[in-house]
């Protein structure tokens, strides 16, 4: 399934509000994500949605619930939901929660950041941007690229 077709059929937990939460999460986890245009964001979104759709329903519920918990934590700490936070505040919130004494909270942050990394770095453009050039042709491709 291509990313485009996945985007058309899969949605993130929580509908429109869920999308906004995930985008805020992505921006906090990967600062470069702020510059994603709409098409690139849809690609990241579809990657995350596809990964979630392949997980058991219980895992999908847990992720949806944890994103809601993040929103509540944001309201308690900053008086605004996650999607309305400046990136620096969102990052600070996630950082604090990632050091929680509660394993459940640390696990939640770990899972959320994993999804964000997947959405961002599994895109071919992101791989190119960081200089990742692995190719099936291996050394042959490497030598060719270096000689051109």
């Amino acid at each position, binding site marked *: 399934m291509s990313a485009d077709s996945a985007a058309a059929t899969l949605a993130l937990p929580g509908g429109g509000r869920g999308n906004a939460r995930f985008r805020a999460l992505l921006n906090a986890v*990967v600062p470069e994500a702020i510059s994603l245009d709409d098409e690139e964001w849809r690609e990241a979104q579809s990657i995350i949605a596809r990964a979630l759709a392949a997980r058991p329903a219980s895992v999908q519920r847990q992720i949806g619930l944890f994103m809601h918990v993040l929103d509540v934590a944001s309201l308690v700490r900053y008086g605004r939901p996650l999607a309305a936070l400046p990136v620096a505040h969102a990052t600070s919130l996630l950082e604090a929660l990632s050091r929680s004494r509660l394993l459940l909270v640390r696990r939640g942050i*770990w899972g959320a950041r994993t999804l964000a990394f997947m959405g961002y770095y599994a895109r071919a453009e992101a791989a190119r941007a960081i200089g990742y050039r*692995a190719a099936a042709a291996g050394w042959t491709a490497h030598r060719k690229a270096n000689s051109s």
Partner: protein
Amino acid sequence: MDGTPQSKQLVIEREYDIVIIGSGAGGGTVAQELGKLVADGRRILVLEQGGRLADHEFTGRELDMSDALYEDAGGFLTADGTMTLAFGRVFGGSTVVYTGTSLIAPKRVIERWDVPMLDHADLERRSRRYMVENNVHYLPDEELNDNNRLFALGCERAGYHAEQFPLNVRGCRGSSLCNLGCPNAAKMGTNRVQLPAAERLGVEVVTRAEALRIEDRVVLARVRERSEGEKGARSEWMPGTYRIRAGIVVCAGGAVGTSALLLRSGLARVVPRLGEGFTCHPAHILVGEHAQPITNDVGHPKSFFLDRAEEEGFVLETCMYFPFVTAKNLTGFGTPHSALMRAFPRLQMILVLACDRAVTGNRITVDGAGRPVVHYRFTDAVITSLIHATRASARIFFAAGAVRVHAPSADPPLVERSQMDEIDALISERHFQTGRISISAAHLMGGCAMGHSARESVTDGWGRVHGVPWLRVADSSLFPDSLEINPYVTVMALADRTAQAVQADAGELLGGRVALTTA
């Protein structure tokens, strides 16, 4: 997953002499060895849960291949969610996704296992045979990339002795994509060597076939349809539920798969230790950042290792992962994490593995739906091993010229070159926080341990399940404790023993009977 058929009319009957469940290092080996019996009229079947991919479907694309080759796309979590377990679910099993590192079990480990009728010399002889069959050899110097050379150099300068991995490749082009399935068909897994040989002998292999439950000389299996867009060929059988009668059943679905299958089949009543003794060499990655670009995403990723298992309980291996997996495995997020990711062309990478031991509580169970649940607690010894491994890795990185090191058990995780004299203080057990550090494992072992009796083990030294003579095991679940090295060669050697015992017992268990039916 309980395997209860919805309607008796939908259950399709089959009969074979021998059914092998799983097609990885264990199942592939048993299939090839027992394939000789087909000439005598025996009917042999291999059931594989995953699909059979064509060569062109190995694209090296990270998410696509993870979905196609791994259970849960490589994201199978332990019960408390603190470790990811990676194991293959494809024609060829985990031999499709390993890096092909081929080592013989250490003598001290086999002696510690204390399995009756299992001696190291026998295991070594069988291991060498499969290493020849799989074209195991050392890569020539000119095919080693900087990531590997720097590890060897760093080890030498830091006073360690790095060893080169023998690899089972033929025509390796250095794609560096081994863990996503070789896109050049160069890795000699069972999908390339033993399974094709078995099929040439007349062994039938059915893919997309999940063994649901084992009853008395019966395997209940479900064959599933290929979903839209999914890689791999359709199953060789029509989708549906099958009841397969078999004179002998050989389980080779891996430590998690075999243990779970036998547990949901009620075998714990016969062998109470079933599922216990799970070990997995818990691992995490470290990266060292160099000032200049190095070759790291080209060339075989895993050419060297440092074996400190006996002295300090850890092994270091060179490695190089893909953007998402790398991002996930680095601790933290935000600006420092992004800066490290942008340094990708300058990153050197080391995988640290702890040589864990079988302890009470680390075990495989099944949930109410029959799905495997892996319970794993990090012992103090494992954490200490990972800390020592991380400190050693940091020294190796700096000795190789790295300007900074990302160490998950440091806080903050970046250790600058100017801090290299403080490594012991900066990298410490107090920063090892599960749920914050990404830990994964790919060497899954135990659950059906070999041993003397049903009181303390599940099988004998030849893979026979205690008290169930027609039921055999031939995979890493047999290990009574961790192996301390990459396990596939040892799995093949043990599977070879299982196959030998099946052949020896075939006359008694199968009689002169030749299966009468019947697809």
